[in-house]
C-alpha cells in the first residue's frame, strides 16, 4: 500500500471546488448552477474526508455527514424554487430574475 | 433618590399616557399634566430643601442616586444635582408644562403617543442635566433625541419628513463624535488608572497630552455646539423648529438647546481646560459671527417660525460667547441667557404656533395688522419680542449684558462685533412686529372675514401660559439674584477647578 501525499487529496478537492465555482459563475441555466453548487459542496466533503484520513480521526467524516445533510436540504429547497420559477417565468435563465436592483 | 423618582415619573407617565389612549382620547393629556405636576412638585421640593441642605452649597454635588449599572466598564447609574442643574431642572419642568399648554388644544391625532414622546423627551433632558456618569449622560442624550425626532416626524407641518431627518442626522452625527470622545476618555482613564470609568469626577483626573486633548475637546465641542447650535452647525435648527408642532418647538428652543450649553459648561471646559483655553478665541469668534450672521438671516425670512428659529441661533451665540469668556460674568450671563431665552423663545414659538393655528399659515407676507383683531395676543407678542430684543428689566438683558461684560474681559474685538447683534436684533424683531401686528389689517384668504368669531383672541390656557412666562421674565430681569445665587457657587467652583481666577475683576 503506497502512501498518497496528503496534499494531493486536498488539491483534488480544490480543483473540484474551483470547477464547481466556475460552473456557478458561468452558467445561466439555474439547474446547472444548482449542480455546480453540489459539486462545490461535494468538494468540501472530500476535503473533510481527506483531513479525517490525515489525522486518523472520525470527526472529519462526521463533518462530511453534516455537509451531506446540508446538501440534501439545499437540493430539496433549490429544486422546489426551480419548479416555482419555471412555473412563474417559463424559463430557467437566472438573468431574467434581475428585479432586485437598486 | 429624588432625581430617580423624577425620571421614573416622566418615563412611567409617558408609558401610561400612551396606554390610556385606548380608553379615552382625552385621558393622555391629563395623565401628562399629572406627571408634569408631580415632577414640578419634586423639583420644587428639591429647590427648597436643597438650599437648606448642608451638602449642596459651595458648588458641591448633591448626589441623589448612585448604583452600579455595567460594572465591567465602570459604568454607574449616578445622578446628582447642584445649583446649575437645579436651575436647568426648573426650566425643564416649567417649559414642559408650557409645552403641554401649547399642545392642549393643538394635538388631536394619536395624542397618547404624542404625550409619550413629550414626557420621554423631558425624562431624557432631566437625565442629561443630572447625570454624573458620562455614559449615562450619553444614554439620556439619545433618549431625549429620538422622541423629539418622532414628534417632528409625526405631528410636524408640511415638510416634516425632511426636517425630522435633518434634525436626526445632525444630532446623531455630532452625538457619535461625542460618544467617541467619551469612550476615548474612558480608555485613557483605563490606561492611567487601570480601570475603565465614566465617572465625571474620575475623568477630570485623566492627564491628556496636548494634541489628544484638543481632539477630544473638539469632539465634545462639536457634539454640544451642534445642539446649541453654534454658527456653522446651525443648519438643522430652522427646519426642525419651523416644521415641529408648537409643543415640539417650545421644547426644542426652550430646553433642548440648553442641553448643549449645559454640556459646554459642565463637561467640555472642565474636562479639557487647557485645550479649551486655547480654543476660546475661535469659539468666541464663532459666537460673534453666528450672532450677526443669523440675525441677518432672521431678517430675511418670511416664515415666522423660521425667523424665530434664526433668532434663537443668534441668541445662543451670546451663550457661547459667555461660556468661552470663562469668567464669572460670562458664565452667569450664559446661564441667565439660557433661562431667559428658554422663556422668551418658547413664548414666541407659542405665539407663532397660535397664529398658525388661527390663520393656517406661517407666511408673514400673508398677515398684517393683527393687533386690531387679536389685541391680547399681539400685546403678548410685543412683550416677548421686546424681551428678545434685550430690553433691560427683562431676563434676556441680564443674560446678554453679563455675557458681553464677561466676554469684554476676554476678547474686546469679539465683544464689539457681538454687541452689534443688539442692533440687528432690533431690526428683525421690530420688522416682525411691524409686518404681523402693525400695519393695515390683512388676513389670509378665507380667514376671519366675518366681523366676529372668525378669530379668537387668547384662550384661558394660552393666557395662563403667556402670563406665567411674562412674569418669569420680569422676575429674571428685576431680581435675577434669586437665580444667580443658585449657580454662583457652582460656577465659582468650576472656575477654581480649571485654574482660572474667579470673578475676573
Amino acid at each position, binding site marked *: 500500500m503506497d502512501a498518497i501525499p496528503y496534499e494531493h487529496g486536498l488539491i483534488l478537492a480544490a480543483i473540484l471546488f474551483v470547477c464547481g465555482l466556475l460552473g*456557478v*459563475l*458561468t452558467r445561466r441555466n439555474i439547474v446547472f448552477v444548482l449542480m455546480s453548487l453540489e459539486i462545490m459542496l461535494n468538494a468540501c466533503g472530500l476535503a473533510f474526508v481527506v483531513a479525517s484520513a490525515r489525522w486518523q480521526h472520525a470527526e472529519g467524516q462526521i463533518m462530511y455527514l453534516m455537509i451531506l445533510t446540508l446538501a440534501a436540504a439545499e437540493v430539496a429547497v433549490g429544486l422546489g424554487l426551480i419548479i416555482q420559477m419555471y412555473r412563474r417565468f417559463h424559463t430557467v435563465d*437566472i*438573468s431574467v*430574475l*434581475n*428585479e*432586485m*436592483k*437598486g | 433618590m429624588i432625581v430617580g423618582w423624577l425620571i421614573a415619573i416622566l418615563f412611567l407617565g409617558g408609558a401610561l399616557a400612551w396606554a390610556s389612549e385606548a380608553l379615552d382620547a382625552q385621558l393622555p393629556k391629563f395623565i401628562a399634566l399629572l406627571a408634569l405636576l408631580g415632577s414640578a412638585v419634586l423639583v420644587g421640593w428639591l429647590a427648597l430643601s436643597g438650599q437648606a441642605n448642608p451638602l449642596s452649597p459651595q458648588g458641591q454635588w448633591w448626589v441623589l442616586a448612585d448604583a452600579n449599572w455595567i460594572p465591567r466598564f465602570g459604568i454607574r447609574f449616578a445622578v446628582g444635582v447642584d445649583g446649575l442643574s437645579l436651575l436647568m431642572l426648573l426650566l425643564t419642568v416649567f417649559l414642559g408644562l408650557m409645552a403641554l399648554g401649547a399642545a392642549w388644544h393643538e394635538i388631536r391625532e394619536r395624542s397618547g403617543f404624542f404625550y409619550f414622546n413629550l414626557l420621554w423627551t423631558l425624562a431624557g433632558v432631566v437625565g442629561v442635566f443630572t447625570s454624573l456618569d458620562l455614559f449615562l449622560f450619553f444614554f439620556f442624550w439619545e433618549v431625549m433625541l429620538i422622541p423629539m425626532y418622532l414628534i417632528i416626524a409625526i405631528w410636524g407641518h408640511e415638510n416634516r419628513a425632511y426636517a425630522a431627518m435633518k434634525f436626526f442626522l445632525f444630532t446623531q452625527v455630532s452625538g457619535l463624535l461625542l460618544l467617541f470622545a467619551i469612550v476615548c476618555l474612558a480608555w485613557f482613564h483605563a490606561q492611567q488608572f487601570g480601570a475603565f470609568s465614566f465617572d465625571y469626577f474620575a475623568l477630570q483626573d485623566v492627564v491628556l497630552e496636548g494634541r489628544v486633548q484638543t481632539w477630544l475637546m473638539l469632539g465634545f465641542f462639536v457634539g454640544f455646539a451642534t445642539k446649541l447650535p453654534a*454658527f*456653522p452647525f446651525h*443648519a438643522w435648527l*430652522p427646519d426642525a423648529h419651523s416644521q415641529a408642532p408648537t409643543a415640539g418647538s417650545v421644547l426644542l428652543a426652550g430646553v433642548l438647546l440648553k442641553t448643549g450649553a449645559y454640556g459646554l459648561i459642565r463637561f467640555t471646559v472642565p474636562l479639557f481646560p487647557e485645550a479649551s483655553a486655547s480654543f476660546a478665541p475661535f469659539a468666541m469668534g464663532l459666537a460673534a459671527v453666528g450672532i450677526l450672521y443669523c440675525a*441677518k*438671516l432672521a*431678517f*430675511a425670512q418670511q416664515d415666522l417660525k423660521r425667523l424665530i428659529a434664526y433668532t434663537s441661533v443668534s441668541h445662543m451665540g451670546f451663550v457661547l460667547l459667555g461660556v468661552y469668556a470663562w469668567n*464669572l*460674568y460670562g458664565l*452667569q450671563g450664559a446661564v441667565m441667557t439660557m433661562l431667559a431665552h428658554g422663556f422668551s423663545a418658547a413664548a414666541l414659538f407659542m405665539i407663532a404656533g397660535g397664529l398658525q393655528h388661527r390663520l393656517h399659515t406661517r407666511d408673514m407676507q400673508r398677515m398684517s*395688522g393683527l*393687533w*386690531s383683531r387679536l389685541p*391680547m395676543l399681539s*400685546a403678548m407678542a410685543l412683550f416677548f419680542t*421686546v424681551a428678545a430684543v434685550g*430690553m*433691560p428689566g427683562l431676563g434676556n*438683558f*441680564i443674560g446678554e449684558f*453679563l455675557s*458681553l*461684560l464677561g466676554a*469684554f*474681559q476676554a476678547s474686546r474685538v469679539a*465683544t*464689539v462685533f457681538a*454687541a452689534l447683534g*443688539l*442692533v440687528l436684533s*432690533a*431690526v428683525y424683531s*421690530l*420688522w416682525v412686529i*411691524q409686518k404681523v401686528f*402693525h*400695519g*393695515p389689517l390683512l388676513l389670509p384668504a378665507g380667514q376671519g372675514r366675518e366681523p366676529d368669531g372668525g378669530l379668537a383672541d387668547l384662550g384661558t390656557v394660552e393666557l395662563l401660559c403667556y402670563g406665567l412666562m411674562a412674569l418669569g421674565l420680569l422676575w429674571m430681569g*428685576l*431680581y*435675577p*439674584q434669586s437665580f*444667580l*445665587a443658585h449657580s*454662583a457657587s457652582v460656577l465659582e467652583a468650576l472656575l477654581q477647578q480649571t485654574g482660572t481666577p474667579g*470673578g*475676573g*475683576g
Partner: protein
Amino acid sequence: MQEWTGLLPAFPLAGFVLLVLSRGRMPRGIAGVIGAGSVGLSFLLALTIAIGVLNNGGQAYTTVLWQWMQVGDFAPGFSFYVDGLTLVMILVISGVGFLIHLYATAYMADDPGFARFFSYMNLFVAAMLVLVLADNLLLLYLGWEGVGLCSYLLIGFWYDKPENGYAARKAFVVTRVGDTSMAIGLFLLFSQLGTLNIQQMLMLAPQQWSVGSGIAVAASALLLGGAVGKSAQLPLQTWLPDAMAGPTPISALIHAATMVTAGVYLIARTHVLFELAPSVQLLVAFIGLATLLMSGFTALTQTDIKRILAYSTISQIGYMFLALGVGAWSAAVFHLMTHAFFKALLFLAAGTVILSLHHEQDIFRMGAMRRRLPVSFWCFLVGSAALTALPFTSGFYSKDEILLAALGQEHYGMLLWTGGVLGAFLTALYSFRLVFVVFFGRDRHQGSSHGEDHAHAAVMEAMSPVMFFPLLLLGLLALGGGFIHVPVDTVFGAVHEEVHASQFLHALMILIPIFGVVIAWGVYGSASYQKAGEHLRERLLAAPIGRRAYRFWFSGWGMDALYQWLFVNPFMVLARLNRKDAVDQIYGWVAQAARVGNSVVVMLQTGNLRWYAISLVGGMVLVIGLGVWR
C-alpha cells in the same frame, strides 16, 4: 420725603400696569385720570422732595431700593441718587409731563386706543424718571432703553399706517446704534474701574486716568455715541424728523422736552469723564455746532409744521451739546430746562393747530390763522420768541449763557461763538417764518374753497380747559423760566469763571435774532412785502444753486439717502441674496455628494445573480490572497 423717592417712577408704572390690565375696557374718564393723575402725583412728590433737598442745602442722597444683582464684584443696585441735576430733571419730566398728559386727555379723546396711549405714556414717564434717578449706569441704561422702547411704541402709535411703523423702527434702530456704543462703553468702564456706580466712577476715574489718556478718550467717546443717538445729534440725527409721525403730545413730551435731552443729561452726569478727555469734549462742541447749523438750514426749507419744530429741536440740542463741549455744564442743563418749556409749548400749540385744521400739517396750506386760532397764535408767539432768544424770554438767558461760554473756549472760542450766533440767526428766521406763514398772510386753508359756512365750521379752534391750562402754564414758564435758578452748582462745582465779552459782541447777540425776525417778516409776513418775498423765493429756487441747495437742505443734508446707500441697501441686498443660508447650502452639498455616491453604488447592484456571485468570489479571492501573500 427722601425715603419715598422710589415712588417717583412707581406712580406712573402703577398707572401703566392698571391701564394694561384693563385691556382697553376701562371708561375713558377713569383711564385719563389714572394716566394723568399718576404723573401728577409724581410731580407733587418730586416737588416735595425738591423742597426738602433744597432746604437741606442741596445735599445729595442715595436710596437703595434693592440689590439688583451680585456677580462677583459686579453689584449694581436698584438705587436712586438725587442731587441738584436730578432734581431739575425730575421736575421737568414730571411737571412738563403732567401738563402734556393733561393736554393729551383732550387731544386724544376720540382715539380708539386711548388707554393704550396713556399706558405707553405712563411707562415712558416711569422709564425716564428711572433714567435720571439711577445711581449706576446699568440702571440708567434700563431707563435709557425703556424710553427708547416707549418712543418706538408711541411713534408707531397709529400702527395701521406703514409709514408710521417705518418711522418708529427707524427711531429705535438708529438710537440702538448709539445705545450699543454706550453699552460697550459700560463694559469698558467696568473693566477699568470695577464699578458702574456713577459717583464712585467719577471719583475713581481722575485718580486712575491721566487727562487725555487713551482709556478716558475711548470711554467718553463710547458714551458720547449713546448720547448722540438718543439726542439726535450728528451723525445719528436722522430719526427725529421722521419721529413726528406720532401723536403731537408725544412729540412734545418725548421728542422735545424729555427723552431727546437724555443725551445731554448723560454727558452732564458723567462730565468728569469728559473733562478727562479734552479731545472728546471738543468733539462734543463741534458736533453740537455742526448739528445746530445743519438742522437750522434744514428747518428753513421744511413745510411740515412738526418737522420744522423737530429740526428746531435738533438744533437746540445742538446748543446744549455746544455748551457741554465747552464745559458750561450748568448752561447746558439750564437750556435743557427752558427748551423743555418753550418747545413743549410750541408742540402743543402746533397740536392745537393741527387738530383744528383736521390734521393738516403743511404750513403753506394754512395762513391767516391768528384770528381763528387766537390761543395757538399767542402760544406760538411766546414759544417762538423764547426759541429765538428774544430779550427777557427764558431762551434768551440760557442761550446767552451758552454763547458766552463758547466764546470762552480756549482755542476755538471765536469760531464756536460765530457759529452759535449764526445758528441763532437761523433760528429766528425759521421760527418766525413758521409764525408768519401760519398766522399771517392769506388764508390758504383748503376749507376756504368750499362753502363759506363749512369753512368757518371747519376752522374752529379745538380748545378746552384741559388744553388751555397746560398751554397757559407752559407759556408763562417759557416767558419767565429764565429767572429760575438751576440748582446744579454743587453738582458741577462752580469752576468756570465769568466770561467777559465786549459790549459789541453782547449787542450783536441781542440784535442778530431780532434782525432774523425782521427778515422773516419781510419775506413771509407783511402783506406789503409778500409779493416781493414770494418773488425772491421763486428767483432763489429758479437758480440752479438755489434749487440744489433747497433740495439738499430739504432732505436734511442728504443724510437719509447716504445711510440708505451706505447701510440699509447693502444689508437688504445681503439679506435677499442669502435668504436661504449659504451654510445650509454647504450641508446640502454634503447630502448631494452622499446621494451621488449612493447612485454609484446602486449601479453595482444589478440584480444579476451571476454578477453577485462574481463579486462574492472576487472578495473571497481578495481576502484569501491577503491571508496568503501577506
